[in-house]
Structure formats: C-alpha cells, structure tokens
C-alpha cells in the first residue's frame, strides 16, 4: 500500500512541477536567451579557456636541429630579386621561371593551365608544382608547401613567400630522412588556382573549372603549409590564418605545432589573422584582444569564406594553415628568410614524423589567443541554450492549441486528483494529454510553399548569374522584381486559398520555431559562428511576433522588423552593394562549395517569409 502511495506522491509532484514550468515558461525562455548571450561574452575571458597542448605524440615539435642556414638565405634572396624583376611579366613567363628553378633544384615539375568562367568574369592562370619524391618512401603520403602568386589582399605579390618556398624545396632535397613526398606548389589566380589544382590532383572535377589533367602526382596529402609573405620587407609578427570554407578548421595539432616551433627557437610575436594583439612568449593578452580574435574567427566562419589558399584543402581531408608575414606590428624585433625557413623546416620535420593522419587533437575549437583554446564542449552550450528557448516555446504553443478544447476536462480531472488521497485504491491517473486533433493543413502548406519559394529564389540566383546572356537582358532591377514576386506569391497562396482557423497561427508558429531550433542546433555543430549569428538575429523577433489584429500599427511594425532582418534588408542596412554581394556569394558557392548562399535561400529566408504570414494570419 505504501508503495502505491509513494508512486502517487511522485506522480503528483511531477504534475506540480510541470504546472509550475508551464506557468514560468515564457519567463524562463527569456532567461535562457539572456544566459546564452551572456555566456557567449564569457567565452573570451581567461578563466574560461585552457592552454593548448600537443595531442599527437609523434609530432615532437621543435625537437630537431634545423639546418636551414645562411647559404639558403642567400639563395632565397636571389630568388626574391628574380621574382621582383618578373613582377610585371605575363603568367607564362612567371610559371616558366618557377618551373625552371624547381627543375634546377632536382624536382620533378609540371604545369597546369586552368580557366574558370563565372559571372561574366574569366579567371585563368598557370599553376606550377614540383614533387620531391622522398628516397626510399613508397610514395603513398605527401606534404604540400604552397605559395600563391598573390598575397592575401589580392594585389601585392607574394615575393618572399615564393622565394622562401623555392629555397626550402631545394634545401629539403638534400636529406634522406623524409618519409613523405614533398610537393611544392606555386598557385596562380587566387583561390581558383588552388581549387583547380586540388580537383585535378584528386581527379574529382566538381566546379566549372576547366584545367589540364595532372600526370605528375604523389600520394595522399597529409598536411599543407601555405606561405604568404608579401613584398620584400622584413616582418614584425607571424600571422596564422586557419579558417576554411564553411568554417572548417584544421586539426588543432597543426596550429600548435607551428606555434610550438616558433616559441621553442625564436622570439617571433604571433598573431591570429592579421590584426589585433601580437602575442609574445608568456603573453596571453587581455579580454578585449581575445574578444577581437574570436569575433574575427566567427566572422570568417559565418561568411563561410576561407581566409587563404589553405582553406580549400579541407574538403579533401587535408589539414592546412597559412603563415602570414605581418609588417606593421609594433615590435622591436623583425624576422626574415632564416626564421621563415627554419620554422617551415622544423614544422615539416614534425609532420614527417606522423604515422597516421592528423586526428588526435580537436577539429572544432575557437582560439581566443594563439596558445589558448575553447573546445566544442565549452562553446556549444550557449548556442544550444539559445535554441532551447525556441523549442520550449514551440512545445508550449503546441500544448496551448490542444488546451482550447480540453479546458473543462482538465478541471474535471483535477477534482478526483485532489480528493484521491482519501481513496487511493480506485484512483485512475488521468491521461497527461488529450486527443484533440489540430489542423495542420494550413501550417504545412505555408511551410512547404515558403521553402519551395526559397529554393526557387536560389535557383533564380544561380541561373541568373551563371549565364552571361541572360544577365544582359535581366538586370538587377528585374531580378529584384522577380524575387519580390516570388516572395509575395509564396505569402499569398496559403493566405488566400485556405480557410484559416483561429488557432492555426499558433500551430504554424510552433512548427516554425521547432524547425528553426532544429536547423540552428544542427548548424551550431557544423558551423558554430553562422549558427550563433543567425540565431542572435532571429531569436527575439521569432519568439515575440504574433498576429495583433487589434493593433494594426504593431502589425506593420513587426513586418518592418521582418523586412529588416530578411537577407536583402540586412544587406541594405549594412550598406553592401547587393549585386556585388550576390556575385561574391555565388562565386563562393560555385567555386569553393560554400553553403552560405544555399543556407540563406533555403532556410533563413523561408522562415522569415513564414513569419510574415503568421503576423497577418489571425484576421
């Protein structure tokens, strides 16, 4: 008997708990949002993150004696002078020079011509690469040392980078300890060149690049280091770029290795990207430096844009980073070829030790400073808290749409419950739910039609710019007109054709919130930054907005906000040239396979369209 009583007591406690939860849910929601946002701002503080460490024991960074010395520096200086002379020559002359130098160094060389036609723009160029076949190795693995012709800014010639790469390649040839082949890659035409080379190397034509096939090849590439040392100056600090397409990151061990190598032998200040604080030894900066670094990373990740040639390697499961020479940092020391060469040599020696692909350390992390990291377990909770609020609200609304019917039965059920303590034996626990059927025709139609409209927008954008012929007759105004036509039709169809019931908007809102929460939480694992930024934009409007037929003004105010947070609204508010952005996003999509454009068109925009239906649906 006492067992039963106990069970009953437990059930009752649980009911009470749920009722309290239900009562506080709207407040709890906002509490979650607030906690989530505050948590995000705690991320950069020093107490929150940990020091990085080398996870892969085979790497042993900085343990070898480096032999890159002044002889190589003189060679590099000679290369630098020749490259400076070549700066105004044609692609062919440049490529021929590089190929000749690589051949002289005793490497097997090949050239690759490629052309890429996109949005009325034609990118063409010649990649040159040389393969140093490691003696005695079986040629199943390779490391890449790459240097693009143009530096990160797209204008300055990467003179020192190429000169260093050439001298290092020549230098590596003299040793037998290599267990992996070394590929020296000088790419032309920015990202298109790297992409063309990678696609041909892996025999995996994906984008619209037409290029000559590669017959000179090596094994599976394990890691790549990209050198970006613009012009011919000395450098003040070493910048590290690591973000790739779609916010992918290299294994943390690779970054750690380079930093450990720098720290072990040289006092070169290290910075993340090319702005912000430069970190010397035992310097962890302050909160604002960390925040700045995090925001930089998150901006790059959210735009799904790679921060250098290295970013394209990730698609092929190759870990890569760019080393960048920063000239304007305020430090007393400066460094040049000897340091660059030694750092690259030592890093390659470490990578040469690898028995397996880099896999030990983190692939998902945030770097507030070069030597401290936040792991996925620490940064994911705030992003998830933001979405949990949406899910709670969706469930609450779903419950509410059922409560309309069942209000009386609820009160009836509560009667025996209160008196149940007296007659335990025959007590039947009421069903915790009711069987009311909800109308899902309208919500589902709206959801499907608006997402279909999103797909249509995506289709129009991709085709509009892909065909040159079309874009001549079909300018930006017509294009905008088409877009607005699609959006308004997608809003009108469900609104006019279907008889709307009173609570339909609740079901619709519940669905949309749940769907948004699902998308955001999934995305937060893949691309944390994009998820956080888009959640921060939509969460407050999405949870607050509802039809207010009594206050027309409020209704239109809501519509205004929705327009402001819709993709065109954001672009116009931020003062971006619409056409420029579209061309950029499209090129990212077609050339690099970035999913920013599909995400905006197929997920982000449709949910805003759905909301513009919601605020007008209860009439």
């Amino acid at each position, binding site marked *: *008997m006492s*067992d*039963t009583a106990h*069970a009953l007591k437990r059930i009752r406690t649980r009911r009470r708990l749920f009722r309290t939860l239900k009562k506080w849910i709207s407040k709890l929601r906002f509490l979650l949002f607030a906690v989530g946002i505050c948590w995000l701002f705690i991320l950069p503080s020093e107490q929150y993150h940990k020091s990085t460490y080398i996870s892969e024991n085979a790497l042993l960074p900085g343990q070898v004696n480096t032999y890159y010395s002044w002889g190589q520096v003189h060679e590099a200086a000679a290369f630098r002078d020749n490259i400076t002379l070549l700066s105004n020559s044609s692609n062919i002359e440049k490529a021929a020079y590089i190929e000749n130098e690589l051949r002289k160094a*005793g490497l097997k060389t090949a050239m690759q011509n490629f052309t890429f036609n996109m949005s009325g723009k034609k990118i063409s160029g010649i990649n040159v690469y040389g393969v140093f*076949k490691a*003696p*005695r*190795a*079986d*040629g*199943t*693995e390779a490391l890449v040392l790459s240097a693009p012709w143009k530096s990160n800014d797209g204008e300055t010639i990467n003179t020192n980078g190429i000169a260093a790469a050439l001298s290092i390649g020549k230098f590596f040839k*003299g040793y*037998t300890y290599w267990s992996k082949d070394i590929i020296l890659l000088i790419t032309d035409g920015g990202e298109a060149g790297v992409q063309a080379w990678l696609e041909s*190397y*892996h*025999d*995996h034509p994906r984008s619209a690049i037409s290029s000559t*096939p590669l*017959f*000179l*090849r090596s*094994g*599976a590439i394990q890691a790549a280091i990209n050198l970006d040392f613009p012009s011919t100056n000395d450098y003040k600090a070493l910048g590290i770029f690591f973000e790739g397409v779609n916010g992918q990151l290299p294994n943390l061990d690779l970054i750690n290795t380079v930093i450990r190598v720098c720290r072990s032998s040289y006092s070169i200040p290290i910075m993340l990207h090319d702005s912000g604080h430069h970190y010397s030894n035992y310097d962890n900066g302050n909160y604002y430096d960390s925040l700045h670094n995090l925001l930089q990373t998150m901006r790059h990740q959210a735009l799904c844009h790679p921060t250098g040639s290295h970013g394209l390697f990730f698609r*092929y*499961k190759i870990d890569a980073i760019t080393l960048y020479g920063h000239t304007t940092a305020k430090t007393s020391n400066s460094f040049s070829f000897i340091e660059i060469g030694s750092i690259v040599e030592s890093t390659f020696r470490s990578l040469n030790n690898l*028995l*397996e*692909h880099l*896999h*030990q350390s983190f692939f998902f992390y945030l770097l507030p400073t070069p030597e401290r990291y936040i792991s996925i377990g620490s940064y994911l909770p705030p992003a998830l808290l933001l979405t949990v609020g949406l899910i709670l609200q969706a469930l609450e609304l779903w419950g509410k749409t059922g409560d309309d019917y069942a209000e009386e039965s609820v009160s009836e059920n509560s009667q025996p419950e209160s008196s149940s303590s007296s007659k*335990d*034996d025959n007590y*039947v*626990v009421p069903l915790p739910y009711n069987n009311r059927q909800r109308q899902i025709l309208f919500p589902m139609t709206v959801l499907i039609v608006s997402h279909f409209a999103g797909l249509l927008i995506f289709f129009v954008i991709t085709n509009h710019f892909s065909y040159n012929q079309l874009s001549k007759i079909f300018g930006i105004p017509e294009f905008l007109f088409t877009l607005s036509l699609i959006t308004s039709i997608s809003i009108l169809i469900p609104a006019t054709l279907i008889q709307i019931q009173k609570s339909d908007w609740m079901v619709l809102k519940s669905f949309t919130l749940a769907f948004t929460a699902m998308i955001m939480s999934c995305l937060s694992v893949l691309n944390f930054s994009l998820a956080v930024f888009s959640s921060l934009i939509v969460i407050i409007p999405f949870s607050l907005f509802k039809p207010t037929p009594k206050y027309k003004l409020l209704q239109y105010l809501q519509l205004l906000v929705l327009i402001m947070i819709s993709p065109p609204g954001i672009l116009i508010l931020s003062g971006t040239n619409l056409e420029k952005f579209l061309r950029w996003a499209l090129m990212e999509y077609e050339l690099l396979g970035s999913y920013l454009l599909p995400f905006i068109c197929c997920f982000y925009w449709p949910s805003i369209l759905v909301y513009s239906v919601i605020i007008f649906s209860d009439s």
Partner: protein
Amino acid sequence: MWQLGRFLFFILLFTFVENYQHNDIFKESLTIKPLSDGKLLTHFQFNVRTSEIKEGKAFSHYKFFPRAIGQIIQSYNARELHLTFTQGRWNYEDWGYPIVPSAGTGVELWAWLWKDGKLDKNWKSLTNALAGLFCASLNFIDDTITVQPKLSFRPEGLYNATELSARAELRYGSLPHENVCTENLTPWIKLLPCKSTSGIASLLNGHKLYDSNFHSMSIHVRPVCQDLECLDRQLEIVQTVSAVVDPVRNSGKRDWSLDQIFGRRLSQACPLAEESKLEVILSENGDYKLSPAVDDVRKNDGDATIALYNLKTLQLETDISMTWNEDVFKYSYGQERGGIKVNIFNKSTNMTVPIIYYDVIPWFLKLYLHTLKVQINGEEVRDSPVSPIKDLYYQPAVDRSRPNVIEAELLLPPNSITTLSINFDKVFLKYTEHPPDANRGFDIGSAVISSIGEGFNHLHDFMTRNCSEDIPKATCYHFFIRVYTETLLVSLPTPDFSMPYNVITLTCTVIALFFGSTFNLLTRDFKVKTKYIDFTINSIIVPE
C-alpha cells in the same frame, strides 16, 4: 689405432664422395650502372645451381645451395619460389627498366606449388616458414590477400610451361606496407656460401644500403635446363640485392667509388665462387675514367658496353662520369573518392605494345565492374573492334575471405596514354578490423603491368642478367617485363577511437539497454487490484 685409421678413412671417403657428387656452382657478380639522373644502380647477384635437388626425391646433402631454402622447397612441394623485399619506388621515367624485374614497395611472394591435395595448406606453411626465416610478416598473407593470377606471373623456370600449369598452381600474395630493414638482410646474407666475409657480399653494408633511394632484395628459386633439349634439369637459386644510391646527394658530383657508396672496399673474391666479377655498364658517349684499369671491355648484344673486372685484383676504386638518356614507359597512379585510375604511357612512336594489367584490390573496396573504363588519349573507347581490351579476367571479392582481382590484356597503340579507371565503394569495417594505426589508412599494393619481352630487345642489360651463357637465347627472350605502379593509401571511414568516443559508445549502449524497461515503467499505468490480495503478499501490482 686401426679403428681410428678406418674412421679417418671413412671421413675422407665421405668428403671425397660428397665433393664428387655435388657439383654445385656458385657465381657472384656486382653490376653498377650510372642512371640518367646522376644516381647509381648497384646490383648484386649470387647464383647457386645444384643438380642434386630433384622433385619428389628426399635430399639431405647441401653444399652451396642454402639448406633452409632447400628444405622449405622440398617439404612444401614448391616448384618455383619468388620472394622480393622492396623499399622505395623504382623511378621508371628516369631510370629505365630495372636490370632484374623489381617489385612494388613492400614484400611480394609468389610461388608455383605442385597440386598434391594439400596445396593451400602448403602455401600457408610456406608463408609461415619464410616469415620465420626472414623475420618478416609474411605470415599475414592469408586467404584474404592470396590470389591466383591467370595471366600474369607465368613460370620463369625453363621447362614445359603447359605441363607445369597442368600439374602446379600459382599463389601470389603481397604486403605493401612491410618495411624492409637489416633484420631481413641478415638472414638473407646467411644463405650465401661465403656469408659476408669475403667476395662482393662483403660490400653489403646495412648502413649504406638503407640510406639509398631504392632498395630491393630478392630470392628466386627455379628449375633451369642444363642442356638445349632440357633433359637434365638443375635447381637454381638467384639472390639479388639492387640499390639505387645517390652520389650527388653526398658529394654534389656524379663521381663514385666503392668506398664512398658502400663504406667498404673489396679485398678478395669469395674462394668458393667459380666466377666473381664486377661489371660497370657504360654508355656509348660519355667522358669518363675508370680506375684501376679495366680487365676487359665487352659489348653486349645491344649497344651497351660493359667494363668488366675480374675480382682477382685487390683495392678497387673507380671514378666515373657520364650521361644517360632513355625514356620509354611511364605511369602514374592516383585515387580519391572511390576510384582508381591508371595512366599507362606508350612512348614508342611506332610500336603497338601488348601488356597485361594486373591489380589486386582488397575486399573492403567494393569495385563496380560496369564503371571500368578505358580511355585512349582522353577519349573513351567503348566495346568495338578497336577496343584495346583483348581479354579480361575478373574475380569479384568475397567479404573477409578473398580480394578483387582484375587482369586485362591490353594493346597499347603507339605514342598514347591509356587510362584505366574503375570506381569503388568503401566499406564500413567492424571496429576490430581496424589496425592499431587506424587513421593511417590502408595500403593497396601495386598494380603490375607485364609485357612479353619480344618488343623490348633493346633492353639488353635486362636480358643479359637473365640469360646466362649456357641458356638457350630463344627461351630467355620470353621473360616478362614487369612494371610496378606505386602503392596507394586509401582511408576508409574510421571511427574515432579516442577516449570520448569510447565514453559515448559505452553510454549509448547502457542507455539503449535500459531505455526499453525505463520507458515501459514510465508510460504504463499501474493500478492496485485489491481483490487478489493474498495474506502473504500485501499487494500485487499488475500492469494494466
């Protein structure tokens, strides 16, 4: 006293009888060939021939023929045995063909075994015995990687081949990721009659040998004919070590000396050897100097001039410099995203070359035969009279028991690039099937392109290695030339074997186990039925 005398007499008699009966012949030679890119090929070859070991006859007296190998051959009924350890890649483009067919990276073992009812057992025992003998992981050649090629790897011994294929079967296995080192070299040297104490074997210095760009060590056991009619057969064991050393790397010059490349000098020939020589293959045009003076210079059937040293002279040091240029055949090999692609170059301007392409692909790559495509110079060739595929043998894989085998007979048009490609799916392996270094990926052995030597008569040095003076020429021109592609590394979907992964897996398992019962408890309603109250039991809770 008389008894002791009789005993000595017997010993003498036995020795005499042995010497009389065992006319084993031992020859050693070292060939040095400067390659076109400044590297140097050094090729050691040791031949032992015995007429004693006959099929089906018990044999227990050994003179020069290594006992370890003889016993293995006899007890496992092997007719031919070829074992090659290779480290590095032979660079066909710059180095031409190897003097003796080398193998792909790793270990390659193939043998013709007599059909005697326990052939597969014999093969297994053979691999195990050789594994023990050479300190190599040959015992890992199990059923999943053993294959029976139908077109490639024909018998190399000199006898009636049809008779052999009726009475014997071929077994082939290779381990691409086997490292070769001194632990394999030491037992190999022990098989030599003079070990490494004298003769050219004394140059085999592990430190220098394993600092080379390419290194291949092999043992070939095969029957050979003693006369033209092949009535009398001998058993021959050929032990070779080929190494490509790079004098340029150390000194910056092409000049070389034995001291420099091996760290040792030659003192004397092996006293047991009937013939002991050092050959330097020279090119036609080149400014070079050999010191000390050459004993003999002879011309081969081809164009090559061979400088010959009979190793009676002591103190050998030579300096040489020349250029070399030949470029016939090259290949490349690449794979990504579930596909294999082989480019075969025929650089001959007027010759159509017949080849046999052979590839063994492990079972965990599921090949799609319908995706097998042949392109010539970038244009796809469909089934038609001009199709370069003349014959195709394909053995589909069986999971966890046997690999895929593709053998194709192709005709390469002159001056063309023939591209073979086939797609595959990668299989999810069971977690226990991953090796300890799971994230490295899986090594796939070399594909082998064989061609019958008739079209390659200009490859004189290759021929001369295989044709001894007393072997009929016609037979020795029928040797296969084999070109090995590079091995490749395929990464399969790998689970995260790290600690968090284990925790997640364990937690999920526990949750899955308890979910059912917990869910039941939570969702079912329990009701007390007072009717059935027993005296002993206070209440019974019955699920409703």
